[in-house]
């Protein structure tokens, strides 16, 4: 028999203690959520306060400062999307981001009943990664009876056509010009030829009635990938 009884006792005690210590150290460590005091800066001070169009509510998001490109490349006079109304809500918005930094001269625009027929790719351009949402064809980022509020850069643009205006030809308008064109943009249904929006934040919501039930985001036959 190896060793005397006392040595064996020490060995067994050591083993039990080691097991106890190891299990104590390793349990509960992994899934500890970051309960930082204020998820968005001290006392959540870095949240933005954003009014949705038409008094539909106030959002207080903590913003990621990541560009979301909504791209629909133009292809001749092909029509790729439909929007009931295009509105400019605020011409000069300053957003505050999660790290406390701010960005000015952004535009708050709203699309009413935005439907995509084809050709749209939504690309999130993060530091060191991209997220691509690529519907094969049709997609809804809003849809009937839903508003799509977008906080975008001024050099974003939409290329639209209307049967009654511009002889139905695709015409590009940058968001910077929206306030001058608001009389026009508000008043008509638009068929879109293309768009290139650099979006900082987007909220899709139903302006009246129950907030749920319409499924404002519909991505049939869509691949979402992290690159």
């Amino acid at each position, binding site marked *: *028999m190896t060793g005397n009884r006392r040595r064996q006792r020490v060995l067994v005690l050591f083993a039990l203690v080691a097991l106890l210590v190891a299990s104590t150290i390793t349990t509960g460590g992994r*899934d500890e*959520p*970051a*309960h*930082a005091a204020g*998820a*968005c800066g001290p006392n959540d001070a870095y949240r933005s306060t954003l009014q949705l169009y038409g008094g539909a*509510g106030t*959002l207080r*998001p*903590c*913003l*990621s*400062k*990541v560009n*979301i490109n909504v791209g629909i490349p133009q292809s001749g006079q092909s029509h790729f999307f439909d929007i009931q109304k295009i509105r400019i809500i605020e011409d000069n918005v300053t957003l505050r*981001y*999660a*790290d406390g*930094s701010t960005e000015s001269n952004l535009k708050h625009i709203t699309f009413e009943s935005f439907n995509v027929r084809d050709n749209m790719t939504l690309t*999130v351009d*993060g*530091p*060191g*990664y991209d*997220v691509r949402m690529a*519907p094969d064809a049709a997609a809804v980022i809003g849809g009937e009876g839903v508003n799509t509020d977008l*906080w975008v850069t001024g050099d974003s643009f939409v290329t639209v056509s209307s049967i009654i205006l511009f002889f139905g030809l695709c015409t590009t308008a940058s968001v910077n010009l929206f306030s001058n064109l608001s009389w026009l943009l508000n008043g008509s249904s638009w068929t879109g030829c293309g768009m290139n929006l650099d*979006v*900082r*934040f*987007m*909220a*899709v*919501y*139903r302006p009246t009635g129950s*907030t*749920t*039930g*319409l*499924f*404002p*985001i*519909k*991505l*049939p*036959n*869509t*691949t*979402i*990938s*992290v690159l």
Partner: protein
Amino acid sequence: MAASGVVYGTRWGRTNALVLIALLVIAGIVVAVKQQVIAANLVFQSSTSQLATSAIDGSDVGFGVVRMTRSTGSGGGTDVKNVLRGGFANGKLDGLCVSQVQSILGVNMTLKITAGDGVLGTYEIQGSNALFDIVSIRGTNGSNGSGINMDGRAQFGLAASDVTTTKTNGVFDINPLEADQGTGWFGIDADKGNLYNIRGTIYDGVIGGPFSLPNLSITVTPGTSGCDASPLPK
């Protein structure tokens, strides 16, 4: 102690009794899981798995880009990947199949976990607090529904740490996706998510909380054939 004449050895009576008890405990656990008494956590990690389900119906849904530390095989090495972490506070799945090709002793083997009642539209798998670390995911049109859908007020561009899913005592938990704080981490928040005919490549998936897995089966088969393409993947 080792006095001559005294023989030491395994006393099989006692041994068998303990083995029997332990096996009964295991059998009890298996029965409890099959009868959905015990919660189960399903975890896939280290390298990508293929996820397939005919539908996910989730409430309080969020997606956010997070840095995931993953182990890189033996030796405790790790590296960091950006993934799109999808979180569902509560969810039902209509059939589930997760498969992964593993090289075991140089031979390709496919590990496959399947669950479900084999009936389309019954959403028999239920769980809460599900997280999937997505590399890519594709939802398609089918007889049961179409692609990836979100309901309620959907917000794009939130910080991933601001995405909310689970609640404790009616209050949203802070940072349920366990995302990094600060800027640079994109997030989407929605009230509800209905995903149909999903095929995806994921690292790491956890379904915590109460979780029922009817007809759970785990198979290891030679070769590389994963979940099939049928509406209810097997």
